[in-house]
């Protein structure tokens, strides 16, 4: 989905996050352009999820600032909600809504013109067509993750933030995910993707940010191809 503006979609200027004496993210300057896929890689505890939470507006930087489409990030604000899709943190589902109804809830809430068609397409992508009337609690972990990702497809978006989207997915679903990420960036959607899988980063990302103990280093697509660091 086109953003419609010329500048960067997401901008971090000296963004820092500290918890007491612990530096979770050292000052970071970063820009994410429309149609770009940025991978965030690094070992456990390196600050990936902290960075994603700052980008999604779920946390406020202790120093510096984060802006989305030129405005201050406010996760609670409709402007961010209308254009930013986030799949991060532990999965959560309504116990009394079916697989299909979860997608209808999101599609309807975003006012999609043809909810049924959008939901059918997303269910087909997630290979959940056989499970439309089931409740998420009885789906497998991989199916639940597919459902979360499918929810991104039934809403408008100019930035998608994904925290380890490949989790629980089988190889076929990972391959579909990689295809989806490429298709999204081709449509002008920006993607920020935290992952432990260097293959996922190589396949989908234009560049990468390597985090280690809160400090970041940049990798180009060519660097990524030869990168063999410990993730």
């Amino acid at each position, binding site marked *: 989905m086109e953003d419609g503006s010329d500048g960067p979609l997401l901008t971090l200027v000296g963004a820092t996050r*500290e*918890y*007491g004496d*612990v530096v*979770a993210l050292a000052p970071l300057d970063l820009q994410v352009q429309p149609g770009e896929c940025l991978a965030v890689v690094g070992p456990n*505890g*390196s*600050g*990936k*999820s*902290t*960075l*994603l*939470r700052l980008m999604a*507006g*779920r*946390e*406020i930087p*202790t120093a510096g600032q984060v802006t989305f489409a030129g405005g201050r990030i406010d*996760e*609670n*604000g*409709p402007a961010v*909600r*209308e254009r930013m*899709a986030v799949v991060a*943190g532990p999965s*959560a*589902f*309504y*116990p*009394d*809504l*079916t697989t299909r*109804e*979860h997608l*209808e*809830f*999101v599609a*309807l*809430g*975003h*006012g999609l013109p043809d*909810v*049924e068609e959008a939901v059918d397409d997303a269910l087909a992508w997630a290979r959940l067509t056989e499970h439309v*009337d*089931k*409740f998420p*609690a*009885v789906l497998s972990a991989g199916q639940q993750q597919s459902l979360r990702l499918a*929810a991104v497809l039934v*809403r408008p978006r100019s930035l998608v933030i994904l925290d380890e989207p490949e989790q629980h997915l089988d190889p076929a679903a990972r391959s579909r995910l990689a295809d989806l990420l490429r298709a999204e960036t081709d449509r002008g959607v920006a993607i920020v993707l*935290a992952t432990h899988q260097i293959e996922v980063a190589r396949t989908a990302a234009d560049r990468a940010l390597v985090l280690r103990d*809160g400090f970041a280093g940049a990798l180009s697509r060519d660097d990524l191809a030869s990168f063999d660091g410990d993730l």
Partner: protein
Amino acid sequence: MTVATVDVSTTDVLAWLRRTRGQRRRKLGKVVYGVYLAAIIIALYGYPVFDWVRRTLGGTELRADTGPVVVRSLLPALAGLVLVALGVFVRNARWRGPVVLGAADVGWLLPLPLDRGRVLRPRLFTTAAITAIAGALVGLLGAAVLHALRPATGIALVVVLTAACSLVGVLGVSVALLVEASPRLERLSQRWSAVPLLLGALLVVVAAVSASTGGRPAWIDDAVTWSGPWGWAAYPISTAGRADAVGTGALVALGALTLLTLLAAAAAARACGSIPTQSLRVRARTAQGVGAAVFMGDARQARLSIRASRAQAGRARRRVRLPGSPQFVVMWRDLTGVLRGPGQLGWTATFAFGSIGIIAAGAAASTDGTPPILLIVVAVLLGYGAAASLVETGRLDGDTPQIASQLPMKFSGIAVRHAVVPSILLAVIGCVGWALGVALEPGLGWSGMAVVVLCAPPLVAAALFNAYKGRLPLELVVSIGDAGVFILAGWYIVGPVAALAVLTPVIVQAFNAAKDAAGVGPMIADVAVAAVATTAAGLMAVAARAGSRVAPPREGGLLGLAKKG
């Protein structure tokens, strides 16, 4: 590939485990400590309660005038309570069951090639024994009440009643085990377990009505008595007052109950070995979660743990049609929630009818037509309960804001929208309740229906305010020292207290205004103004609270612990 046959002595393994873990010694210590605690509690609180019951019920007036009528009504009442108790056993079997293993036993003991029946049976027997003792104590208490009502009651009835209650406990545990061991029975119980509860409640109502009207047809007693174990257990009570014996009928009933209990216990002991591992695993996890939540005083989390263990299997057959506009998405979601959990409507109706019944009874009994303030307080609390039963979807959003956060609306706006459907439903159910009240007591008048409708939105706003409190913050429990219990209580009761503070004066004022010569028109106008004002204030508070649930944290995580990605 050949599989080696194993010849493992289950008894030896269990004995080794007990020895190594020092389990027997610890268990014995726990039992001794438990008995000591029980004795202290019974000595301190039991006897005074027992004595109070004897003195309260032993008044001459009760024995001479109403005693026989009350005693007679005890048959359906006790049968109903036994039915409810059996229903509760079955319901609890779906998440806990009489046999619960610890997580370590599930992970280490169950995978061994042992005779599972011998591993699990001692747990079944322990649960059955404890329940039998508890049943016997309840039976003794019942016998004490009977003795107070009918001093001529002989010792034989005390024995029979105690035995019957004890047998009901064992029967309940046995049936629960069969449910735990059989996925098919578990599915059936999921569908039908509300039936014994409803029938039990119906029998209690029959008892209350017959106590107030002075009698009922004899065939009802016969039907109740011989309809099943609940009737057999209750039958001896109908012989209260006889000094000689309990009668052949009661002995036959007790014999039937004994036989059925023995059969059920034998079936349960046999089924112990076939409890599916998955069933034990889920129950161990749930019991652990519920135990932790109860220890923390977090009732909501305990309820969520039980709900998670009853993940809705199967498929949804009915759906609410999608609305045409995104503005109605929250209402659609709320209606879908009611469709999937129709029990919410049942609880709402129960609370709402109770609330209206109390107001009506209080108004009818008072000389000036205004119920006593205490009854109004109880009625408002029941009304709050009715509203709270309808805001489950809002409560789910308060628990896990990340789902609704996917909508392009402010979280606070979503919270406020959650008030619409419950307010309408509560108003409709309230109207039905009031109409029933007017049908039974025409003096109530139809103008009160307007007050009922106007009270629905403020009650829902108060319930939503409580619903959005989210999960109990750990800081609240661990960092507040001696004041913890009060802060914890405040955490839970802020909603009902808000409803009381707002609606009690409104209702009192409504009753006072209705007596004025000006008529009901100005009264309804006053109530409407108050309802609109309090609803608006309540929803603003809901919005503020919901907004704070999703506000990004500025400082470090819980108790200053570092949180890193």
